[in-house]
């Protein structure tokens, strides 16, 4: 298939892209950004507190083993 040849499937795709509503696309983009920020926030919390949680857990598990 040469690049200049008409292709109805590609023409249809282009028509849908040309007729899309930018506002809807921007709102999806903003929602994605919000979600990314939430994930980053949760990720930061986890990376911040995970070492401490692991230390506490290790102590707890170690302690309960010693009690047996």
């Amino acid at each position, binding site marked *: 298939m040469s690049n200049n040849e008409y292709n109805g*499937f*590609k023409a*249809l795709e282009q028509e849908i892209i040309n007729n899309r509503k930018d506002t809807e696309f921007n709102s999806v983009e903003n929602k994605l950004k919000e979600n990314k920020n939430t994930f980053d926030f949760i990720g930061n919390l986890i990376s911040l507190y995970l070492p401490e949680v692991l230390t506490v857990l290790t102590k707890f598990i170690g302690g309960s083993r010693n009690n047996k």
Partner: protein
Amino acid sequence: MMINLLSPIVSGAIPADIADEELVSEYLLTQNGRYFEILYQRYSGKVYAKCLTILNDNFLAMDAMQDIFMKVMLSISTFKSKAKFSTWLYSITYNFCIDETRRRKKRMMAGEEEIEKLTDTLEDEDLIEDERLISVKVDHMKEILGEMKEIDKSMLLMKYQDDLSIKEIVDITNKTESAVKMQLKRAKEKFVKIHEEKYANEQQ
């Protein structure tokens, strides 16, 4: 080794011709959302067009596009840079739309599985030329695709819109090669049949 601290990427100006795969690796490295934004700007239209063609509904297509990019964002670390980013993204898109349809029409699924079982054993020559499909006018194309099953539309889009090879379609759909060829053949036959029924009296 000298590190260029003022490289265009660090200073914020990302080259317009930067490859998709490079954007992914920079995004993973820096977690800078700007890289993901560029991927979104490059592909949101195409993903939306596929969702709209397959799902036939603007609201469903917008929701699907959002969910697909969310999925991409969450699983981007699993993307293997040897593959093409667009093929990986389309794979998520087609599978999402087909799953979405199956969720909505559970009854359809049993029927399709039956066809899949049959297709593994059937080998039949594909006699319909590609030209016959791709030469169809956009308005007619919309009407014809609107009457086809989602899985058949997906097959045609993968082959004629995305120029994917049979091997790539096999990877995306998780079907055998003979099943893909048979599904594609049937999709082409359905397309031509609807076209003939609707526009037999019109000249292309």
